């Protein structure tokens, strides 16, 4: 069986790995057609490269290596001939397939803005998207000279990129035309708690204001004019206003495409030999642009192709958890969240809002399951909620408990000997209590050695020696007459 995968990005490469690992019968001969000349890399971490936290070299992902695999790098597919079952590449060569997986990903959407020509390669100097390893490299180079940056779009990527630029030392203005930051994930109150934390990390948020034009002089960006007329001086514009699925090759081949290539729950297009996964696909539940979803699709498709049975939907939940990777900004959302959610009478929503400390936690519960959460500045609580959400473990009988950490170990304060309970273990290794030591003292033990002899306290790990000393001192003080010369 000849299988062709168009796209060698995070999802395409993962799919090939998953498929070959499952194809123990050796059914498939796989050819990957990848546009980028480099090996697959972790796109999720590009904003970390901008932040200076990661070297580009540490983004390289596993590159499937297998006797039944051919990877064509730096070659793009130009068309699909569904009748002859052939993929034609730009060099004119033809690759016949029995099954075809499209994983062409998505491209940055450049907004229609005065002064910006969205044609690839025609952007003015100083204007960048952040989609590829080349983009990241160019942005890092640009920050060497640029001090004032504008980021357009405060979705997850926009916030991460703004944070990254701020960490590079830029003054960053984050322009977002919607009423809430990350409006798909955050409602107004969550957004304002987040916005109030931004100045501390060097970001000035402008929420509810759009960009009207890029001010360009001599082919080089000098500022951004906002819809309210203000001009923000800037020598670097990072555009993070969403993506456009790379559907051209599918559309030209007559496959149904809307925002992405239309597929069913199992990533199948209407052509039974053709599948689409990752950011280029539009499954019934909608695309989120999250790699976890793409990897989930890859795994499920690999299961489907190698076992011929439709894998259960189970295990796929939780891949819609969103965590913003931005220094000093702690944002995690999952499931039901954001201001635009439909009214659901069966759901309970509970909120802890503490704007003064930058904390905002909302949980949405249905029955005994957590179905959504929004966490700003929540620390461990967010991590616990993610674990509860992804594994669908039951929530406490009063879901309000979810709003605070369940895992705060009691701070053990050194208890003074008189406050210690009689049955408190002093020496764990030998199960010796305060009462045991007191009675040894009553029977004449006056030193650590004598107490050890009588009770074995301190004779295990020795960790309780100080405590036993303090206890003996206290007992001696209480009963000075008993201390012999």
């Amino acid at each position, binding site marked *: 069986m000849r299988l062709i995968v168009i796209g060698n990005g995070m999802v395409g490469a993962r799919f090939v790995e998953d498929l070959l690992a499952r194809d123990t019968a050796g059914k498939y001969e796989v050819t990957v057609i990848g546009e980028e000349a480099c090996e697959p890399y972790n796109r999720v971490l590009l904003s970390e490269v901008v932040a200076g936290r990661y070297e580009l070299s540490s983004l390289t992902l596993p590159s499937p290596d297998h006797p039944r695999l051919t990877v064509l790098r730096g070659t793009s597919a130009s068309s699909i001939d569904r009748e002859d079952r052939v993929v034609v590449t730009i060099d004119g060569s033809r690759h016949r397939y029995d099954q075809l997986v499209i994983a062409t990903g998505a491209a940055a959407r450049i907004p229609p803005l005065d002064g910006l020509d969205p044609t690839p390669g025609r952007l003015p100097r100083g204007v960048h998207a952040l989609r590829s390893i080349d983009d990241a490299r160019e942005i890092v180079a640009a920050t060497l000279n640029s001090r004032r940056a504008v980021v357009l779009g405060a979705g997850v990527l926009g916030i991460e990129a703004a944070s990254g630029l701020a960490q590079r030392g830029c003054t960053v203005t984050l322009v977002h035309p919607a009423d809430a930051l990350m409006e798909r994930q955050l409602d107004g109150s969550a957004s304002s708690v987040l916005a109030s934390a931004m100045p501390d990390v060097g970001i000035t948020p402008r929420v509810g204001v759009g960009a009207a034009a890029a001010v360009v002089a001599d082919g080089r960006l000098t500022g951004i004019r906002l819809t309210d007329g203000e001009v923000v001086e800037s020598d670097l514009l990072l555009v993070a206003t969403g993506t456009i699925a790379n559907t051209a090759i599918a559309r030209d081949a007559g496959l149904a495409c809307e925002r992405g290539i239309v597929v069913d729950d199992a990533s199948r297009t209407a052509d039974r030999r053709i599948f689409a996964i990752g950011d280029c696909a539009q499954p019934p539940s909608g695309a989120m642009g999250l790699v976890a979803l793409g990897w989930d699709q890859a795994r499920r498709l690999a299961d489907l192709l190698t076992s011929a049975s439709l894998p259960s939907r189970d295990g796929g939940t939780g891949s819609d958890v969103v965590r913003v990777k931005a220094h000093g900004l702690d944002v995690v959302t999952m499931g039901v969240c954001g201001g635009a959610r439909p009214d659901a009478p069966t759901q309970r929503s509970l909120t802890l809002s503490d704007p003064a400390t930058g904390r905002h936690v909302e949980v949405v519960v249905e029955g005994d399951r957590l179905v959504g959460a929004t966490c700003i500045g929540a620390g461990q609580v967010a991590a616990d909620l993610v674990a509860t959400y992804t*594994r669908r473990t039951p929530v406490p009988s009063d879901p309000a408990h979810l709003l605070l950490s369940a895992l705060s170990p009691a701070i053990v304060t050194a208890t003074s000997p008189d406050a210690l309970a009689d049955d408190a273990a002093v020496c764990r290794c*030998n199960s010796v209590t305060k009462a045991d030591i007191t009675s040894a003292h009553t029977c004449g033990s006056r030193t650590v050695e004598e107490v050890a002899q009588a009770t074995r306290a301190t004779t295990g790990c020795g960790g309780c020696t100080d405590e036993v000393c303090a206890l003996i001192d206290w007992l001696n003080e209480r009963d000075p007459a008993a201390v012999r010369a």
Partner: protein
Amino acid sequence: MTATHCPYCALQCAQTLTPDPAAGVNVAGRDFPTNRGGLCQKGWTSASVLRAPDRLTTPLVRGVDGELVPTSWDVALDLVALRLREIRSDHGADAVAVFGGGGLTNEKAYQLGKFARIALGTANIDYNGRFCMSSAAAAANRSLGVDRGLPFPLTDLGGAQAVLLLGSNLAETMPPSVAHLSGARAAGGLIVVDPRISATARLTENGGGIHLQPVPGTDLVVLLGLLHVVFSEGLDDPAYIAERTTGVDEAQRLAATWWPARVEQVTGIPETQLRSAAMLLASASPMRGGSGAYVLTGRGVEQSSQGTATVNAAINLSLALGLVGRVGSGYGAVTGQGNGQGGREHGQKSDQLPGYRMIDDPSAREHVAAVWGVDPAVIPGKGKPAVELLDSLGREGGPRALLVHGANVRVSAPNATHVGDRLDALDLLVVCDIVPSETARSADVVLPVLQWAEEEGTMTSLEGRILRRRKAIDPPEGARSELWVWRELAARLDAPGTWDIDAARVFDELARASEGGRADYSGLSHARLDAEPDLFWPCPAVKDGSAHPGTPRLFLDGFPTPDGRARFVAVDDRGPADDVRGEAPSHLVTGRVLQHYQSGAQTRRVEELVAASPGAFVEIHPRLADRHGIAPGDRVQLTSTRGVVTATARVTDAVRPDTVFMPFHWADEANVNRVTNDATDPVSGMPEFKVCAVTVARVGSPVPQANSPFASTTEVPA
């Protein structure tokens, strides 16, 4: 006064035994590098088992009425030999199986392997070490070329600035070892990874370090996340990696798929904690001028269907930081059972011959056959590993007879009810034991054997040091050494070879058999060990007759791999075999309490230990307890797809709200192994004791305490 070592765990604390007409012997701690004179409560009270009221002192044979009745050794041994011959002639030699233990001395472990292979002629021998050390062993072998739990003396930990402990609760399991962590704690560098706030996790409090409390079954992801941070933040040691390792590229690429936010999603460990932990380790590493860092794994991460992968991930992390094979840093597995180290070196494993040789290696077979005085062709091939072996008992084509030495599988095996059914399906079950353990009570023949204070031998401790066990008192009339039992049976079975009953002579034979193997003891003898208590293997015989000094630290000059380099083994997460889901929404993790050891066959017979820890319990978070209406002290039932266990609730926030904990030292309805999973690791065959999915339910109010819990727990049902 006799200088020996404790009968329990792999720390093998040094003891002095003084005969005492009333108590049998008096026990005192003895100064030694590992325990510094300390003993835990188990060690202090170990002599009580010598005088256990139900100590076995006469062979027992099941009579026609179904009861075990005392008989003479001759009758018992004749019967065993006769039945073994019958089963062998009816069903073939592999129809007789042997199950050994990690508590047997080196001499007994060796002799048992030899007995199985050339007296019984069976391939089917394995041991309970498959339940504890096999994943660590498999991972170390494939990465470092040899498996010695700690490839450095335990005391080396004292100088470290950071110690990462994964799945080890040593404050509970081997308390005197905690002293060796004081340096790391003083530097704020103790990092404990445990889903519970265990006694060991508490050592990180008050500035001692960091406790990472992951979702059960996600340790591998924690390690992949740490490796990711090390590589991405440039905390690795490129010169070390280039000079001393291979395979880094693939491991690094795999780690690139586990960025901290993704790790947090799976493990519940916040990104900031993960990064701090990586930074603590890195700043302690030699490359960054730290005073040293160690990565140590225990059963908590190894008893998993991906245990080998998890240990390899721990080794990968250690290699990336340049720790392994440098004085003052390293990777190690904290061995559990008393002779868990030696027990895995001398031929009890289904695939191994003495000296850590592989049974399918022709030159190994030839060498060992020469020592045994047999044709190499006589030695059987690989047998089934423990879980598979137990599952095959009494089945079509499976073993019809089982000999058990130093194990209580009815309590200690995963999916224990099923294992009990398999034991019941046997035609013949022979158990050698010191007390009527649950397994012994169901045997057809029970043979009474010796305890630690009654015998000579050697034990190899967690650090690969060979220790002398010495006889302090005479055994009770009627109990016999297993060495004697095997000699008697070998004679009755007309077995080839010689069957010494003197431990020193068996050791000499073991030493010859191990010569040239990975665990080479050929330069050792009881006499030499008596004079030198600080010898670590390998300690080969030297041609010119001089004495090899032993090897306290491995890997300083290279790794025993074909190219002399350590291997990064690229591993990825598959998740636990039995993960939480709607109908089983809580994780169950299991572990130990300080007062008890393994299946509790010994410690449940010690009054002081029972008084301090009388019975099984379930640790449950207040939130989960509230959900199920459980109050402290209530009877709680845990149900998995394999079985049900009942115990008393302890409501505590030391466990995660999605997790319950239960210790595994009790039998019957309180035996948590009725619930644990027998899914195994594909590389090591180790079962997934440490995580499974359960439902939690309250079944009743507190049971009034019996007047003397001790009396009731030691009662032997008729």
